């Protein structure tokens, strides 16, 4: 009898724990809907601290920050959400609202047709997607080749030879896509600026001239670092150094 009781209580505990995170999410949503955005932020962050995330979670968190008029945080989490789910309309619309709150308007550098095409292609699948696709293709390739070798009917043989070549090309393509994507992700780090206002200098020392000013919520690409100076590039291609800037990197999910 006692054993049964313990078993039931343990079972209840496990189920409660298992549902705990989801219920936190629901509690946070309820808090958001009730207008208690601070509470919502705390609850959403709790989920993050538990090591779980999703585009939806980041989106909700960003919305809460938007409601709290915290530009930098809001934009930061919208970007996070976009990383996980780049094509979600809700994220794009609300992200644009958050961008409106930011002080800097950085005009995006126009891109050439080729770069656009290239980025579109690379963006068709995520890095993982490309990897899975490559594996799928190599199996397909082997299958086709096997059929080609096995079969003796000339027409079938010709068809499968062609199919083999096509899949080989696709394989090479998808492998290089995955490779480009991973090296891109490794080399370029984006961050969101959290300083209310910061001067961007031409050189990493105070004798240089101030090129321009940036404000909270601007997305910057983080380049070199020299002591307390950080080289940044903004979307319009301008580069410069900031001193002791508070830039939160978008890389990694933390």
């Amino acid at each position, binding site marked *: 009898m006692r054993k049964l009781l313990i078993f039931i209580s343990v079972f209840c505990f496990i189920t409660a724990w298992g549902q705990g995170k989801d219920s936190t999410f629901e509690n946070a949503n309820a808090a958001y809907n009730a207008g208690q955005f601070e509470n919502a932020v705390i609850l959403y962050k709790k989920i993050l601290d538990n090591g*779980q995330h999703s585009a939806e979670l980041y989106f909700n968190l960003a919305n809460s920050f938007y409601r709290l008029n915290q530009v930098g945080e809001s934009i930061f989490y919208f970007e996070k959400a*976009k990383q996980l789910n780049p*094509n979600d309309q809700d994220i794009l619309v609300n992200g*644009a609202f958050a961008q409106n709150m930011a002080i800097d*308007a950085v005009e995006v550098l126009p891109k050439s047709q080729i770069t656009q095409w290239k980025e579109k292609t690379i963006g068709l699948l995520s890095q993982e997607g490309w990897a899975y696709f490559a*594996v799928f293709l190599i199996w397909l390739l082997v299958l086709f080749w096997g059929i080609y070798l096995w079969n003796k009917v000339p027409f079938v043989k010709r068809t499968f030879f062609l199919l083999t070549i096509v899949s080989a090309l696709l394989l090479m393509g998808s492998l290089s896509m995955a490779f480009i994507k991973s090296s891109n992700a490794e080399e370029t780090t984006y961050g969101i600026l959290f300083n209310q206002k910061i001067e961007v200098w031409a050189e990493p020392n105070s004798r240089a001239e101030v090129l321009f000013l940036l404000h909270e919520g601007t997305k910057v690409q983080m380049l070199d670092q020299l002591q307390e100076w950080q080289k940044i590039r903004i979307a319009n291609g301008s580069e410069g150094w900031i001193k002791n800037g508070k830039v939160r990197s978008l890389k990694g999910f933390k």
Partner: protein
Amino acid sequence: MKKTFVTVLMMMAIGQTMAQEVSFEAKVSKRTLGLNERLRVDFIMNENGDNFNPPSFKGFRVVGGPNQSISNSYVNGKRSFSKTYTYFLIPTQKGALTISQATIDILGEVYKTSPMKITVTEAVEVPRDPNSPEYLIDDNLHLVAEISNSRPYLNEAITVVYKLYFRNPLRISDGRAVENPQFADFWSHNISIPRLQVEDGTYKGEPYNVVVWKKSVLYPQKTGKLTLEPLTLSLVIDLPSNRRDFFGNRILQQSTRSITAGRSTINVKPLPEEGKPVNFFGAVGQFDFDALINKKALKATESFEIKLKVTGNGNLKLFNLPELVLPNTLEVFEPEHSEDVKTTLSGMQGSIEDNYTIVPRFQGKYPIAPVSFSYFDPKKEKYFTLRSSEQIIDVYGGPIANNSNENSPIVSKQFITNADESFRFIKLNSNLEPIVKKEFWNSKLFYILLITPLFLLLAFVLIVQRNRGISNDVEGSRLRLANRLSKKYLGEAKKNLKNKALFYDALERALYNYLKARLKIKTDDFNKDKIAEFLGQRKLEPQEIQFFIALLENCELARYSPTTDVKMQQDFDQALSVISNIDKKL
């Protein structure tokens, strides 16, 4: 008494007649005098002369003279004559001075006076005649510059008031400023006085009439010692003289007097560096700051205004208002600056404001960042920072701005939303997944999955190639086929190669079994004719059939006849070749 007087007179006359010589001498009023006293020098001669040549009066300044006087007197028929040149001198330096010789030409001869030594001492206090006009003016007329603060901070207002004090019996009939001070290094404002008015006042505890001549408000623009230039007035003063008119009233006498005041040094302190706010623009005084927004919510493309207003007391005209920092998507026009400042003796008072007109183009929430305004209060000697409250402008009903420069590769995806796009609600499905996800790319599994098919393919290719090689090699393939068949049917026979009876039994059984399996013949009707018939149906050569039958017969025969091991082996090989031959044909 009278007698003695007469005698003295007589004697003097005698003496004079006795010394009826020409004399020319110099007399001074005193030998020792103060620097501020005057000296009278008389040059006296008793005969008329020409070409009087006064000395140079080195160390003195001639303030009067030469005055000439001549006296001619006859006493008892005796003529006495004297001619005097009088000079009034003021010493210009202290010490022992010499009045050198004067010369004159009398009756053709040149006479000289003897040089005289004069000692000039420090200025002495001269009791002055209270009735002299100078004294009266000095005593009863004062020009005073009142400076409110001689140690102000930079940009702190100070006032300079020039007051003219006078009292009876003086009356001022006219006055004008000879020299008006130019306040260099100051921002100055003269408070205009429409009419000079005489008021009652006190000067050093005594009642006086007061005229405020000039009022100035100054804001020092430089630190350090700054000099105020003096104000010089030229006044025409009426004052009573000693003379009286017919009715016994005193006759007024006019005199002009220049009077100067206000030369002073002002020590301007710099503003303290300690605690100086970053956004300090030089405002000094007591201020109040506010940012006023006339609308909190509006439609896109409507305009609203933000007014940055500073009111108070201080150097209002001398600093700039802080700049408004606004989100980029708002269209902001140049601010309109307006001032409503009155300058009084206590400094500038009023308000200045910057009026921004702003047109939001897109809908959304726009935070108006708090604007901070810092000033220095010279009274409390502290900096103060005032901050306007942060406000949010809610703009509805317009297109959404598209400046979402996304991280994702799908960049510059034009993102067109309809005009009444609104802020979307949160998502309700969590779809949570662990943050630390194993990446498939670059993982072991990925490489294994990538490489395995290649090996599979290789293996496959090898197998196919081997198959092809087998079909090409005829002899070998026959051998292999025979091996296979022998293994299948002749296995038992091969085992019994040593035992003759068992061997032939097994061989015969094997042959029958083989035929049974290949030709699907039932065991019951199994004889040699039938076998030959069946095999003939299978288009076998009659020779081969013969061969097979012969082998079967051989088996039966060999069971009962002595045979050698060699014969057995021969028979086995023959069976093998027959089977494989038939197998190929079937």
